[in-house]
């Protein structure tokens, strides 16, 4: 029983991380049909921001020394900041470009961010002590679960609730949902294009910051490639969930996290290193079964 509980929390916390990542991608994809490949680098950027201005190998966390209630809003703001800056400087010029061009532009942007970080901080992963007491286990129903896992899950739930309230109950949320479904029609009803897009980028950036904070606390290291693996899964989850569907992205993130944790356990020991191969094969099967994603919009089909 305790073993099952541990696996459950494992799956849930990994899934939470993926869900947050997928949400960050899906928000922007919803309004702009852009897959932002720089998202993973925003995650790294936010984490490195905590180190500034120190560049030593054993990170002296400057901003990280701030108390929780100051550090978290600061990092969230930094995430929102770099995201919005990307939109203003880069993505705005690509509003009408084809998907491939936008995608490569976002990749190039991520490249620039990553190598700027590299230039400033060097490539060796640094260790960081961020709330390391959170990895101590707590007892839940007899199982010993790392506190951080519980916190990750709670944070994700809170984020999802806040986002849902925002989208369903506020005027801006309404505008964003409409813009995500039919951008041009929304504009014809007076929805301001730039404002909605900037809002999406800001929210997405904050999500990247949240993921960064969790990863840094979890792994105790700060490394340029931090966001890369999350980015890959987030991208896949966004599509499997159903393009433009935020709930879909979240569910898909949890599913992939769950599948990954499950595989870790049910695969025979010899096959365990190939866990990823199984998970990604499952992704392919899911796509064949449901090519349009798990949650499709039930709006009217396009006439030819």
């Amino acid at each position, binding site marked *: 029983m305790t073993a099952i509980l541990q696996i459950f929390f494992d799956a849930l916390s990994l899934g939470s991380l993926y869900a947050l990542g997928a949400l960050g991608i899906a928000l922007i994809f919803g309004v702009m049909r852009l897959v932002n490949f720089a998202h993973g680098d925003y995650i790294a950027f936010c984490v490195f921001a905590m180190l500034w201005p120190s560049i030593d190998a054993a990170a002296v966390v400057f901003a990280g020394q701030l108390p929780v209630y100051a550090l978290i809003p600061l990092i969230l703001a930094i995430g929102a900041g770099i995201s919005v800056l990307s939109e203003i400087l880069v993505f705005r010029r690509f509003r009408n470009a084809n998907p491939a061009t936008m995608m490569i532009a976002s990749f190039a942007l991520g490249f620039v961010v990553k190598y700027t970080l590299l230039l400033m901080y060097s490539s060796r992963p640094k260790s960081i002590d961020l709330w390391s007491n959170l990895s101590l286990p707590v007892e839940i129903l007899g199982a010993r679960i790392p506190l951080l896992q519980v916190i990750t899950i709670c944070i994700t739930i809170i984020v999802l609730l806040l986002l849902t309230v925002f989208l369903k109950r506020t*005027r801006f949320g*309404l*505008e964003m*949902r*409409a813009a995500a*479904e*039919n951008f*041009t*029609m*929304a*504009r*014809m*009803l*007076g*929805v*301001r*294009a730039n404002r909605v897009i900037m809002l999406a980028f800001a929210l997405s950036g904050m999500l990247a910051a949240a993921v960064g904070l969790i990863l840094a606390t979890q792994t105790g290291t700060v490394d340029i490639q931090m966001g890369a693996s999350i980015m890959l899964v987030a991208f896949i989850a966004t599509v499997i969930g159903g393009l433009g569907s935020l709930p879909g992205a979240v569910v898909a993130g949890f599913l992939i996290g769950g599948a990954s944790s499950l595989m870790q356990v049910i695969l025979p020991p010899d096959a365990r290193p190939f866990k990823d191969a199984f998970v990604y094969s499952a992704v392919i099967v899911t796509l064949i079964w449901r090519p349009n994603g798990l949650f499709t*919009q*039930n*709006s*009217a089909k396009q*006439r030819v």
Partner: protein
Amino acid sequence: MNLLKVDNVTVSYGQLTALRNMSMHIAEGETLFVTGPNGAGKSTLLKAIAGVVTPREGSITLSGHPVAGTAPEDIARMGFSMVPEGRHVFGSLTIDENLRLGSAMRRDKDVAARDLEQIYQVFPMLNDRKDSHAGVLSGGQQQMLVIGRALMAGPKLIAIDEPSLGLAPKVIDDVYAILLKLRDGRGLTLLIVEQSATRAMLTGGRMILMRGGEAVLEGDARELTKGNALKKAYFGYGDH
């Protein structure tokens, strides 16, 4: 006083010229029908007015203000509302949300709230299902929804692209009945793109016939549909 004036507008999609030197105008309170065969440029005309496409040449003015090349959301704020072809409800939003979106940009929230009530009175079937997702509505109901939504913006000029498309005749009758009632109640100016010249004749008003991207005929709807001039202009040949 001309509410809308389109002057020598040319719009091209790449190599294809959809509007060439198109000119037209609507006076306040008028009802104008724009008719013509497929590909005549009627939808493009509306899109140009709405700001969705930018004319290569020419000017468009709304209440005297030039709007060619302005963003659609700004044109909407100048009192222009458009119902594009194909209805385009926001299927993932509820009926109520669709309607409230229409008034999202209005500052006079109390008047907007009263407008919403009135729309529900005029369209009772929308009121019945106001918390259902708009995607489950029938064609006619969706048409009512988008008209209601366009009205929620409190516009002076409404342009509707093909309101009858895909709807059964009885439903079209209902749609038009409500449209005209709303027009008279609020003193709206209507610009309707309509394939069916008969409908224009029944409704009355002015009519413009477009072909090949320009206006080839203009006059009173009832007179034009009775005579041969329309047939000639529409099909390219006349009296039989």
